[in-house]
């Protein structure tokens, strides 16, 4: 399994029946591919849709049915559309059960930075700040390190997305939660030892007595 598949499959295990789920762009989008049939989760696209489905065949696409990146999507039976004020009312009001987002850095306390690298081009935060402030559960799906540097850091030096800590981080090497506000290793990826995770993690992780491997 490649890194992205490990992350996406593991995140998919967090979804519960009936959950309303918002997936960010990049690795988070892949999570939809690993949702068990019959789980009946609803995917929200923040441009105004609940019930978004896979990319339709050529010839079945409609220019007025796209995801938040502007790419064609389909709608499943029972879909609902709404305007942007309602869409972010759902997000900010805690009606979205889970949001899965990419990350640049997550720190020991669970703070996320994922929208801006000072000195580089600033694309804008889009919906990220609202999603992290408002969703019931925030899951970060990202590579454990980028260019050899740990993305799990002692303290974010990039601008924060929100002061609300995330709930779970899933990387290609580990699952990390934040009980009591302290980054804690929950699982390791298949074939990866606790020592290997610690070696490539800048932040100090709390290590429980037993750290199981991810199960697929």
């Amino acid at each position: 399994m490649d890194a992205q598949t490990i992350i996406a499959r593991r995140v998919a295990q967090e979804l519960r029946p009936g959950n309303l789920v918002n997936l960010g762009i990049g690795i988070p989008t892949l999570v939809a591919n690993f949702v068990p049939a019959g789980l009946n989760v609803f995917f929200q696209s923040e441009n105004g849709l609940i019930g978004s489905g896979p990319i339709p065949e050529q010839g079945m696409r409609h220019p007025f049915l796209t995801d938040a990146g502007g790419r064609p999507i389909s709608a499943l039976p029972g879909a609902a559309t709404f305007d942007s004020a309602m869409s972010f009312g759902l997000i900010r009001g805690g009606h979205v059960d889970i949001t899965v987002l990419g990350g640049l850095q997550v720190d020991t306390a669970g703070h996320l930075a994922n929208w801006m690298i000072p000195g580089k081009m600033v694309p804008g935060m889009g919906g990220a700040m609202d999603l992290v402030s408002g969703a019931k559960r925030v899951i970060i799906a990202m590579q454990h390190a980028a260019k050899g540097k740990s993305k799990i850091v002692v303290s974010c030096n990039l601008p924060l997305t929100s002061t609300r800590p995330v709930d779970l981080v899933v990387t290609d090497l580990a699952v990390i939660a934040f009980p009591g506000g302290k980054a804690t290793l929950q699982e390791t990826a298949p074939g990866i030892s606790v020592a290997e995770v610690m070696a490539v993690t800048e932040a100090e992780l709390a290590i429980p007595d037993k750290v199981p491997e991810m199960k697929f």
Partner: protein
Amino acid sequence: MKSVSVEEAVALIPNGASIMVGGFMGVGTPERLLDELVRQRKSGLSLISNDAAVPAKGVGKLFDAAQVSRMIGTHIGLNPKAQQQMLSMQTDIDLIPQGTFAERIRAGGCGLGGVLTPTGVGTTVEEGKQRIDVNGKSYLLETALRADFALIHAFLADYLGNLAYALTARNFNPVMAMAADTVIVTADNIVPVGVIAPDHVVTPGPLVDYLVANG
């Protein structure tokens, strides 16, 4: 409501006007009005739009022709021209959270002075804003946003200006149609009164000032 040609509609907009433009990555944007804004070479526009779309699409056309001097939006990551114009200080671009953007416009349209949102508290977004605590939770006061003109695209418009939208092309159009002094609408389909059932009207006709006639 008055029915006008696209040329007449855009002629109403002076250089330097503030314009809200519906659409999300160009989906649900009144393309004919944007083409005409380019053709009439309107300049120095203050654009209020969720994003900068992509070159040659939606509000992206206004960046292609360098007609935007100021923008309030949430994301310009997919339009390199907008990014260049921001970095070269040619365009002053204010990027804010998308939910805040939607609520500020809604407040402008609904006569509210602003809203208290938790989004952005403790981040760079808080700079220059009032923080207000309610029941032990912190919020930012985000003030109402209005424009001189709203350029709206609907899927259906009836002869009275009642509007209905299609799928994800709805997005910011309904809130913007309430938040501008003058509201100009294009529609894929202009239909007789009654085709849109009362319960399916999203934007009531009295909000629409000008409906652009179809060809």
